[in-house]
């Protein structure tokens, strides 16, 4: 009996098992012996392993064309984020900020430095550019600085976008990323009227949050934040406010407390984010930074803790795990800009600085703030949409940002779940292609993916229920949470 192998990638997963995936990320674990047989073409077609591999289009002993057809269909689905082009448009209404965040990577400007505000004509140009994106979904996200310090431009952008959308009829969404300290009832009434979501930052319990994110005016930013969160919820509804955390050196060893803080503040999810230590000065790096190993260790501990909380009946999602699990366990594509191949920079998400400069990502803007304009796409006041998004620069950047053709990634068994990030490679390693064995991001992703896959492999039905409740965003119903194992 003979059979043919179809495209596959594999890795030794542990001492006895090989992790093996097809071109679209469907996977299975097989023993070393079976793997040996598989590649020598001596697997028995009646064997369960053979049938499993065949059903996943890793091999075929009959037709090939329809099998390729099936893989192609799934491949199109997995890559369907590409059909839409740029959906996420981040806008910086001002660089001014009233915070004093320890790890701030944006060259924050003084509260009075009005020359760093976006002006009206630039704001209009930004919206005009955004609405030339072919994406049927447009998400405009206000970043900073502190956007509330230039609320009149925020309003102008919202209203002008809504007006433009009367004709374009896209699925339009607004998010404002703010420390909330300046939020007023009038602003909230306005945001409610225009269906704006709020994304704020909460780094943990009072002392930790205050340490990471002090305001310029007071050291107790935490109490102000908590008070404003409840005000926002009162006006906009409970689920209109989400929060992000960034882990500094001070946060390590305290992830559980941070999780508890999120739960006690009524959030039903969080994103455990690592800091990008390459964005700030060496001195700060030593004080605030940490190694990826340290982060991953803390992350995994926190993840276990969160899973446990879910098992005890509280629905609470860790978004990074949820995202990776969605990529591993479903046939669908995900819209998260940092975890895509080709990379999401520019083609999925883009950022417009206060002066109209357009950068491929937030990190690219930070590089520019430090004097490196490598990832500047142009300026809305000078360049047309096509010049910005269809330049040879963007094309060549995206061409070299596909995992499928990056060294090491191209044969990595985790490729289908992972993403390319040339800006990060560049800021970390001075080169957009980068060197995987020493890449911090690769280290983090690989370890976390391995850990999640190991949990999946163990086949604990209860944990599987938790994962699926995250993926499909539906709390587990107790009476029907059935464990089959």
């Amino acid at each position, binding site marked *: 009996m003979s059979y043919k192998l179809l495209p596959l990638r594999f890795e030794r997963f542990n001492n006895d098992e090989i992790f093996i995936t097809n071109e679209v990320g469907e996977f299975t674990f097989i023993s070393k012996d079976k793997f040996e047989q598989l590649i020598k073409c001596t697997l028995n077609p009646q064997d369960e392993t053979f049938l*499993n591999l065949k059903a996943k289009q890793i091999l075929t002993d009959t037709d090939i064309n329809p099998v390729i*057809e099936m893989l192609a269909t799934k491949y199109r689905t997995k890559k369907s984020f590409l059909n839409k082009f740029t959906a996420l448009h981040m806008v910086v209404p001002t660089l001014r900020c009233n915070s004093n965040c320890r790890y701030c990577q944006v060259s924050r400007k003084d509260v009075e430095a009005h020359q760093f505000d976006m002006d009206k004509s630039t704001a209009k140009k930004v919206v005009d550019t955004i609405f030339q994106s072919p994406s049927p979904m447009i998400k405009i996200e206000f970043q900073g600085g502190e956007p509330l310090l230039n609320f009149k431009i925020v309003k102008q952008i919202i209203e002008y976008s809504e007006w433009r959308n009367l004709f374009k009829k896209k699925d339009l969404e607004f998010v404002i990323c703010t420390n909330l300290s300046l939020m007023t009832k009038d602003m909230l009434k306005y945001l409610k009227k225009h269906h704006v979501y709020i994304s704020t930052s909460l780094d943990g319990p009072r002392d930790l949050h205050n340490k990471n994110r002090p305001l310029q005016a007071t050291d107790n930013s935490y109490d102000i934040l908590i008070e404003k969160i409840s005000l926002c919820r009162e006006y906009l509804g409970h689920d209109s406010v989400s929060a992000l955390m960034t882990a500094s050196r001070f946060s390590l060893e305290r992830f559980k407390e941070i999780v508890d803080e999120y739960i006690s503040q009524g959030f039903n999810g969080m994103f455990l984010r690592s800091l990008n230590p390459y964005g700030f000065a060496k001195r700060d790096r030593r004080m605030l930074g940490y190694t990826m190993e340290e982060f991953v260790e803390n992350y995994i501990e926190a993840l276990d803790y969160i899973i446990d909380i879910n098992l005890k009946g509280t629905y609470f999602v860790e978004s990074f795990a949820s995202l990776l699990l969605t990529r591993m366990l*479903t046939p669908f594509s995900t819209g998260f800009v940092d975890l895509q191949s080709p990379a999401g920079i520019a083609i999925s998400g883009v950022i417009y600085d206060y002066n109209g400069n357009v950068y491929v990502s937030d990190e690219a803007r930070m590089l520019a703030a430090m004097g490196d304009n490598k990832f500047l796409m142009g300026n809305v006041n000078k360049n047309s949409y096509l010049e910005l998004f269809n330049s040879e620069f963007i094309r060549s950047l995206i061409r070299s940002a596909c995992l499928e053709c990056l060294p090491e990634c191209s044969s990595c068994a985790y490729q289908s779940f992972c993403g390319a990030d040339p800006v990060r490679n560049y800021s970390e390693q001075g080169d957009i292609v980068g060197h995987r064995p020493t890449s911090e991001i690769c280290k983090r992703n690989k370890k976390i993916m391995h850990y999640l896959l190991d949990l999946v492999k163990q086949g604990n039905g209860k944990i599987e229920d938790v994962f699926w409740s995250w993926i499909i965003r539906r709390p587990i119903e107790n009476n029907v949470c059935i464990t089959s194992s």
Partner: protein
Amino acid sequence: MKKITGIPLLDINNHIIGKITYKPIKHSLRQDFIFVANGEKLESGYAAILVTKRNRDPKGTTILCNLEDIKYLNTGDVVSIEPNGNINVLYKKNSVGNVLLVTERCNCSCIMCPQSLVTKEDDKSPFIFKIISLIDNNTQLLGITGGEPTLIGDKLIDIITACKQRLPKTKLIMLTNGIKLENFDYVKKIVMVQHPDLTIDIPLYADTDTEHNNIIGANGFYKTIQGLYNLARFKQKIGIRIVIHKLNYKRLPQLAEFIYHNFPFVFHIAFMQMETMEVAKKNIDILWIDPYDYNEQLEKAVTYLWKRGMNVSIYNAQLCVLPKNLWRYTRKSISSWKNIYLEECGKCDYLENCGGFFASSLELHSQHIEIIKKN
């Protein structure tokens, strides 16, 4: 469909189709009605008259039937009468299990087919159009089945179109093996009818071509898959059906996985017990497994899909055979005329909720039938 035996009091030359009525009908409309007489003097003009006592003055086609059988027929039902007097019940007004059997030919020969098929037949479509014209237009649900309905080609499109025009409120479920749907243009024609509520249900029995083709006795697997893709391209509402037997029960969880990863667009997935008639009965030795013995695989498959947000059901199953956590997926789905219960079921507290048995299961059914008492 149910058959009633009758004795023609005068010779009949051809098939007669009509709608049952117990009340006299205006003369000009009578030709579409079959009048159930109750001893009164017979009048002419009806397509046929059913009587329970011999009548010395038959008017046109008059059929003598047994009183018990007649009771089965209600106003609005549609029946056909064969020249030998046999009455086929084509449509029951108060049932949700009505189907149009558009052909008895098929391009597969499934190892567990519960029907007897033919290789040659006359065009049934005039007959089907007639039935459609007689069906009550408040009917909720109507099946289109065979044989393999797509074998009648464009006639099928005409039938769906007729349903859309005559029965716009009726939900249609068409059962097809999907092989002919490999042809994109044919699928396009079906979809272009723009029927307001059409579901196309397609069986898939295994996660590899070899196993599936072995079960259906044809080289259909990849054609059916292409058919599913074609339907999906038009966003057509699709269901997948899986009949479970000894040849495929072991890999039900893997089949669920296969469906989720390749056809996440399907609207509904149904797992069903086998009906042990005809071909299935002949092959019973290689097919039969006590449904109780595949509970483990069924549970894995069903919960796998449910967790992923898919809409999944179990058809034709008895509650006492299933683990309790699967009860919520069961649907009563056996057409009423062949749905039976065992004698002991009478004492079961869950009789009302239970799917019961196919009539053919009387001889062969699970060894684990046991009445259940509420707490």
